[in-house]
């Protein structure tokens, strides 16, 4: 047995194949990027435990992720917000986790996307579970997992083929994702999901920016619209307005009584999404009732010219450029209302 020869072949051939693999995917337009996963979320969540009264935390759904730009906010106020919003999820479990498991007394901006915020308090339901599982992971993550994630960051930022997002996008290029693209004649009655491709980038601050392709390539943007239609077209359980509001109010009271500030934000929506929200979750019955009962500063984009002057790209999220402007306008309102601190002026 000549293991020396085998080992040399294995190492050199292995490196060669991996280099070819990397070059191939780069030639297909892939670039190294970070994944939006539970590890990055937990690393961000850890910041809450050391945050001060001046700090700002974002919780909410994908609209908060896309529309509130962390880096822009920091440039404007000198404070880097802690972005804890989760795509496709209600903010309630994350807010609950902050209230119950930290001493944080700063500001929390709670994004209200009606179909998600008022959806459920049932722990197994996807809008809840997608968020609560990350809080749970934060609580239970091991030291090994923390170090492991830190070691993975340079790899994610250097190699295009490293892609393992929690969302499992169609255009992920890990082995499992590639195998999922193989479709033979269907056996089950489950309708085939429309292609759901990653349409945003995320950085180490969990600052999410919509890909430029969404703005320039209508077909690509339309493919995301098709996904929203498919998700929202099926039979959905009715909203649990009373339960969700009650759940939120309980946490809100505890948080404000210890000195924390809450700001509610309703982000813009258009087209199909807006229609559903108007019909299924009308503002007077949902948003208005929530803000009356919560009695905290609340901002609905329709009430502010500077917040409603935007067109979402796929009915739900703003382009990166618009998100910068939206953030700037929102920060300006909050500063005028004296709700957040501008460390740059102090």
């Amino acid at each position: 047995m000549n293991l020396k020869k085998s080992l040399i072949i294995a190492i050199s051939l292995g490196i060669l194949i991996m280099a070819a693999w990397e070059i191939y995917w780069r030639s297909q337009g892939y670039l190294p990027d970070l994944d939006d996963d539970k590890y990055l979320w937990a690393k961000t969540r850890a910041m809450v435990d050391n945050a001060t009264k001046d700090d700002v935390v974002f919780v909410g759904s994908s609209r908060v992720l896309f529309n509130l730009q962390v880096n822009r906010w920091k440039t404007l106020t000198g404070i880097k917000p802690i972005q804890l919003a989760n795509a496709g999820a209600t903010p309630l479990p994350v807010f609950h986790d902050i209230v119950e498991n930290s001493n944080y007394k700063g500001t929390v901006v709670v994004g209200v996307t009606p179909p998600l915020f008022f959806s459920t308090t049932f722990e197994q339901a996807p809008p809840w579970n997608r968020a609560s599982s990350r809080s749970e992971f934060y609580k239970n993550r091991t030291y090994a997992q923390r170090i492991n994630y830190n070691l993975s960051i340079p790899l994610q930022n250097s190699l295009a083929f490293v892609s393992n997002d929690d969302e499992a996008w169609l255009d992920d290029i890990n082995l499992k994702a590639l195998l999922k693209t193989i479709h033979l004649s269907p056996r089950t009655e489950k309708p085939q999901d429309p292609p759901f491709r990653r349409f945003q980038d995320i950085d180490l601050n969990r600052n999410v920016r919509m890909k430029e392709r969404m703005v320039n390539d209508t077909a690509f943007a339309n493919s995301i619209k098709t996904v929203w239609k498919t998700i929202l077209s099926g039979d959905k359980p009715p909203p649990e307005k009373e339960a969700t509001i009650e759940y939120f109010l309980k946490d809100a009271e505890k948080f404000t009584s210890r000195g924390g500030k809450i700001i509610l934000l309703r982000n813009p929506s258009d087209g199909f999404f807006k229609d559903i929200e108007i019909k299924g979750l009308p503002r007077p019955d949902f948003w208005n009732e929530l803000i009356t009962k919560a009695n905290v500063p609340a901002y609905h984009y329709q009430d502010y010219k500077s917040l409603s002057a935007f067109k979402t790209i796929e009915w739900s999220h703003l382009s990166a450029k618009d998100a910068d402007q939206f953030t700037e306008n929102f920060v300006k309102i909050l500063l005028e209302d004296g709700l957040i601190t501008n460390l740059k002026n102090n």
Partner: protein
Amino acid sequence: MLFNSLIFVVFLVIVLAFYYSKFLSWTSKKGMLLLASYVFYGLWNPPLVILLWISTLVDWTAGKKLALEENQSKRKGWLLLSLFVNLGFLAFFKYRDFLLDNFTSAVNAYGYGYEVQPIDIILPMGISFYTFQTMSYTIDIYKRKIKPANTFLDFALYVTFFPQLVAGPIVRAKDLITQFYEEKRANFNQFAWGTFLLTIGLFQKIVLADILLADTSNKVFGSKSILHGLDAWTGTLAFSGQIFFDFAGYSTCAIGIALMLGIVLPDNFKYPYASIGFSDFWRRWHITLSTWLRDYIYIPIGGNRHGITRMYAALIITMLLGGLWHGAAWTFVIWGALHGLYLIIERMLKSKIQIKLNTLNELFLALLTYIMVNFTWVFFRAREFSTAKNMITSMLFMNSEGEKIVETFDVIKVFSLILILFICHWIMRKTSMKDVSLKVKPWVLGVFWAVMLFLIVISQGSGEQFIYFQF
């Protein structure tokens, strides 16, 4: 810390660098290995290292006393202390809620409204492995089969040796402690072979178990519906492959890593899915556990020394306890009971029917054994009896209207992979990987190795835990 993680790669490189450095003595190297093992374990949950320390201290003291003490009742006392501490840990951390649940159900069956709040206690990783390992040490000293370890360092390293700490192989003291007495260094071939084993183990875990099989198995066993027969079989076969690749993968990694340090660990799997009969299966599946159960339960309670009935009773008790070792649930007990039953039926048939084995009937018997083993996996994997019942009836094609939930590609993927697995086990059942590697050309082994490395890297598993960590 998991073998299938980046942090482990860094950890292993650092450990190897110190281990092969010239400025450390052998004692210092063993100290370094011990410290590394505590770091390996502690990075998961630091306070639980205390359990390892307690187990180490108690068994070290008990071992020394057992060796020196001549008074039989005092010797019994020291042995009982060791058993009490180790089994006490197991009872408290692993079986507490199970025992309490069953006690509550039994009491309430007589009309008492007894209620207990289950304590949410974390199950220390690998507790069943290291407690069994340390118990074997004191029991063997009690039986005067072995002498106590030369030094506390040797013993502590035996209890904590990181390659096999959390999921075996369960190594006997005579096989491992003695290796620590003299300096060990792997020669180039051992080191390279260890690296190859580590690669193949990671390939089994990351690519075969986690990427190719786990999803199908999880989907089928997670379904609340009554399934179509093909779906039930696909899910069960997927699980049979997943658990083999997961566990054998861990053992192969452990053996490989130890070999990179020049330390030899025993085989834990010998191509079990081509076993001819269930006795053969247990000589090939989780070998270090089955020999432990044989030596410390089956033989002490009588084995085959007291007639057929006692032997059958010993077999069933051993397998029931083996089932319970895997998890605190009745489904595991049934899994063990089924294996016990299989072994009894096999022995009964063997005493009545003499079959002259040839390739064809060997193949048939291997296939039959594998199919029967798959029925036991249903109880092992199902979280509830209702799921197990539905799966079994579907596998017996009694649910013709069952729901189809597995897509065509996944059915083909699972059946192809399991067929390849079975063929490989069949071909390999009378040989070993080492023998095969001696016969193949170095470039073939090199290309195979490179492909495995490539598939591991592009799989980018999300660092899933090994299934056996929970046992």
